[in-house]
């Protein structure tokens, strides 16, 4: 009996859920999505690869010439790499739609920018 006013109220409201994929939710500021490297800042210390709990970050080479491969299918989106980075070279984007049947599409490579000769 007691639920009737509650039920009536909702009979005239639109559904609470979003009609994904037609309606998309706005991600809040500071959302932890895919990571992005700023390779101009990276010093190649390797802390990100070392602290990654799931081993999703592969470091190729060492030091200033190091490049990175992020295996996003292993990523847990914890943001530890961005936290560990001493030079703030890693940022978290607000992209979150990565469902894929092809693993190779979920590998992101970050290479050193080609230095311009002056």
């Amino acid at each position, binding site marked *: *009996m007691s639920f009737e006013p509650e039920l009536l109220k909702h009979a005239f409201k639109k559904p609470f859920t979003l009609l994904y994929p037609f309606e998309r939710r706005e991600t809040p500021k500071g959302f*932890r999505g895919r990571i992005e490297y700023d390779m101009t800042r990276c010093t190649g210390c390797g802390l990100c690869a070392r602290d990654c*709990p799931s081993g999703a970050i592969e470091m190729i080479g060492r030091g200033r010439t190091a490049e990175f491969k992020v295996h996003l299918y292993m990523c847990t989106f*914890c943001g530890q790499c961005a936290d560990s980075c001493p030079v703030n070279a890693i940022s978290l984007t607000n992209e979150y739609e990565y469902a894929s049947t092809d693993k190779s599409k979920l590998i992101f490579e970050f290479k050193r920018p080609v230095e311009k000769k002056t």
Partner: protein
Amino acid sequence: MDIPIEVDLLKEKLGDKVIEYGSIKPKRIYVKIDKSIVKDAVNMLVSQGYTHISTITGLDTGRGLEVLYHLDRMGSLITVRVDIPYDNPKLPSITDIIPGAVLYEGEVRDLFGVSFEGNPYPKPIVLPDGWPEGFHPLRKVYKVDDVKKIIIEHEVGAPQIEVEEGRGAVYIPIGPQHPALKEPIGLRFVVEGEYIVKVKARIGYNHRGIEKAMENQTYIQNLILTERICGICSVAHTQCYVLAVESALDLDIPERARYIRVVMNELNRIHSHMLWMGVAGHEVGFDTVLMYTWRDREYVLDILEAISGNRVTYSINVIGGVRRDIPDDLKDRIIKTMDYVEGRAKLYMDLLSRDPSFTRRTVGVGKASTVDALTLCAVGPTARAFKVRKDIRKDDPYEAYGEIPFEMVVVDNCDVAGTFIVRAKEILESAGIVRYALEHMPSGDYRVKAPRRVPQVEAIARIEAPRGELVHYLKGSGGEQLERYKVRTPTLANIPFVAKMLEGCNVADIPIVFAAIDPCMACEDRMEFIDESKGLVWTWSLEDLRAYRKLREKGSISKPIEYIDRFGGGLNVV
């Protein structure tokens, strides 16, 4: 450090057998005793009021095994340490003194090979059936690869539920699998007619070996891993982990971080209790409640997402503070949400305590006494619904809980309805705590730098997770990896008690009584019935059980076999 008088008494009475004792931290006392006097010592401590056993930890020290009994009295924890050799790992069971220790002993027996003589559970509890004799995965001689090899070589399958001999009784094993908790549960029911006579728990269906995995990772990686022990109380697990690590490091964190952690913990509790309310509504067949509470829960998850960047895994606690600050512009939004949540919680409490479709399924269902809750060491809202005054936030305050005024919600309903009232009132208390913490939040830093190495010390952290007392035990190795980590989740502590609650209940009440401890439900998706008098075995899904209950309420059928005759539900072996 002050040593309580009980320990001096212990030394006086038992003499040389008490090898050493002391205290490392306030409220943390240890007593090292000879293995011949385990029962005497535990008996004495229980008579002094240390009636609650938090957990039993096994250790492999390299020289032998060590068993740690963590006994609690009003927040102070005595750790009784016993050394045992590798070649004769035997100890007397303490289950006749503290019945609640039954699963903890079983866990240590499975993982370390310590046999507890007199433990009523002779079968494996955590390990799967078919596991080779003498292979105890947490002993240091076995590496992770050895465990993986065993699983492949021996075709270790899911635990089997054995059937006992009996006449005419029906056995109902409830087969479990749930991703949200470390301990999914199998319960075997002995039923006479419609009434449950006896319940036995069988856990370990989804034992993920996290404790072993943690020994091979760094402290930072472990922080992320502990968060994934449970998706619903993910703040609780990292909170307990950072408490343990910070206590081992003797690290003081900034005041502001302590308040932010309290806010996160309480928001976590609110959404967990709301989730439970929905599940409880669903289990009594009242799905409207599920829809409403889960919708309201989204508002809480939204602010958690706004603070931390994710809905479920927040990654907010780090060793040395919190990762993100709560900005001032979010405070208004959080307080507004708290007002909304309070209003809704009051509404549900009001509506559901009057609604006959809810009260008839909960009031007087799952009855047990306060004494049972105490002796079986129930924790959290489950215990508080049975008039047990136990809340780690009050008894053993951590973070800023000692400075924040709030009430411990205790009711004396002693049934499933009581667990609902406790949780609804706790939502109100939690909303109050969040508001107070936000208003009184000190300014300043929210994080300090923590070393990556933890010295060779031990630490026990306890917090009040949404489901009850959560215990983490840490032993550092001096390096970047830890020596031993132990997690005891609240659901494990509540299993012996829910078994007691279920005794005398109706078969149809199993879902709601079991849900009353908030065990991260879905464990009950499959049930197997055995009717020995007819030699039948059949499996019912939860849908079958619900349909059966409805038909039985209408009076059109009275026995499970009639349901099968009419609908053929799940009859698979004859």
